[in-house]
């Protein structure tokens, strides 16, 4: 496509293009990822990259690529890839981590206080190259002498992709992945390796990586007794039926007081009614609709 039309729409000086809104709604309906008005420019840039590939000059035509043309499924995945590219980094969502520490963990600890075993199980489902579980490992370590004193923590990280898992286990990251890391965390938990940073063993050893296909019903049933499940920007690639099955597994895998965290601006609307959306300070999460089974904890 030519640069000019995208540039002029990029400025968003007029009302948002109705075809861009249709693409926004399609992405939300299919993948559950919502682009609010302030992020429409970003969506437009991502569409622009795909349109260039396809030599398409208008959003209307591109919308047809996503909905009518025989290759629409492939194109949708290509657009979703553009949308999620670069999403993986350490401390991707600080509000989510703040909500975890300020509200969620205290509530889980309170719910489990009556049980003798002080153990938390956290699952990063679709961990990609490992930034998410390592971030969790670091913030958990920070709380080891405070909130989580005397608790044993298990962080399980799974992904389908062997190469991503190998990268995660190697734990060496460039500047893009580490762009949100504060000096404090860089100095305390990382070792410089050439131009990159490697996660220190204390953080690495707290995470167990394994290969898992979220569509593998048999293996999913083994991921029992989770307190927290993080599954960010993974479900977007599943069709509705598969998504429902995965979510049902998460439901079964979570303890009654457990929480499911999705990516920022990612929603389960119309996918599953067994989870309730809850609002935390600056973040949202999903909890089981019936949380009254606290006395039947299977630890």
């Amino acid at each position, binding site marked *: 496509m030519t640069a000019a039309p995208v540039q002029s729409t990029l400025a968003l000086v007029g009302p948002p293009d109705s075809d861009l809104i249709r693409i926004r709604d399609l992405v939300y309906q299919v993948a559950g990822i919502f682009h609010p008005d302030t992020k429409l420019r970003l969506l437009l840039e991502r569409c622009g990259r795909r349109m260039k590939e396809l030599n398409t000059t208008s959003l209307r035509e591109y919308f047809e690529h996503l909905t009518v043309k025989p290759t629409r499924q492939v194109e949708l995945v290509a657009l979703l890839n553009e949308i999620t590219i670069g999403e993986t980094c350490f401390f991707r969502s600080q509000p989510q981590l703040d909500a975890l520490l300020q509200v969620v963990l205290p509530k889980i600890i309170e719910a489990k206080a009556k049980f003798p075993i002080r153990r938390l199980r956290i699952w990063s489902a679709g961990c990609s190259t490992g930034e998410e579980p390592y971030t969790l490992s670091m913030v958990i370590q920070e709380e080891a002498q405070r909130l989580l004193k005397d608790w044993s923590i298990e962080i399980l990280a799974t992904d389908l992709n062997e190469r991503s898992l190998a990268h995660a286990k190697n734990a060496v990251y460039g500047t893009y992945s580490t762009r949100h890391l504060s000096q404090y965390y860089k100095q305390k938990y990382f070792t410089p390796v050439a131009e990159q940073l490697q996660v220190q063993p204390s953080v690495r050893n707290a995470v167990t990586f394994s290969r898992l296909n979220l569509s593998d019903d048999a293996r999913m049933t083994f991921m029992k007794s989770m307190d927290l499940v993080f599954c960010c920007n993974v479900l977007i690639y599943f069709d509705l039926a598969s998504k429902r099955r995965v979510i049902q597994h998460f439901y079964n895998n979570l303890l009654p007081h457990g929480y499911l965290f999705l990516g920022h601006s990612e929603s389960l609307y119309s996918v599953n009614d067994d989870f*309730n959306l809850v609002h935390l300070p600056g973040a949202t999460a999903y909890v089981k609709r019936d949380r009254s089974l606290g006395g039947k904890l299977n630890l």
Partner: protein
Amino acid sequence: MTAPPIKPSLLSRLEDLHQIPTIPAVLAPLLRYLEQPAEQLDVQKITDMIAQDKSLAAQCLQMANSPLFGRWQKVDSLRGAIVGLGMQRISDIAMSCGVLNLAPKDADGIDPVAFWEHSLGCALVCRHFARNISYPDPGKAYLAGLLHDIGIIVNLCKLPAEFRAAFEIARDQGIPLHEAESSVLGFNHCHTGHFLANKWELSKDLCDVVSRHHSTYEDSEHAALIALVEIADLLCRMSGLNHGFIEKREVNLLDQPGFAALTAQCPTLKDFDWARLTFELDSYMDEVHSLVHAIYRK
């Protein structure tokens, strides 16, 4: 939280409200004028009413040019703004600018900007939410959201030290402001807002929103409007459009009393996409922040 008895000395200070800033002179007649059926309204008359207050007119124009109010091409006259945005939208803007000028610039160490960001944010969320659930009067919902916390103005002006103590408790413990107010003062901004709403002669439904949005209101004939504000207020407080501090808690909107009250009037609420509304609300934050700073700091 059990509220302590209201101290008589505080009550006597509240009885004398003459130091509270009054609603700008132009707004009361404008509000009354806009209560008429839309087909009877005259653009020129509204332009003339707002133009009486030059500073207000300038602020209205600034706000009218914000994407928050749906304006995508610059307007440089009040009349142009009214024609472009519609009379309802301009009255929303005039009210917003009017109330933003009310609070003291600094009240015993508390910067009131966050309260106005919260109020303007709540107004926008109320209007957006009202449209999404086919609530019959989104314009009223906007006003209700904008004005729901006017009791805070009274507290800032009349009880600054006590209010600051309450604010600090709320901020430090991460609890809702009205709970901290109740524990320190024996009442909260709904009670003081009630005084001010009466003084400003707000309509009965707005008075009910101001005075009852943190208490039981199922018996109110305006329960749906109060519920709408209660939910929008909560959503804003759990996001970056809060009172200037984070409430450390978990909220399930379906458990709120307002949810049942509102569902009775808007059945579509049962299948409402709360996640999407939350994401949409996120997009207001930067614009609300810069607008409030631009207008309030003048």
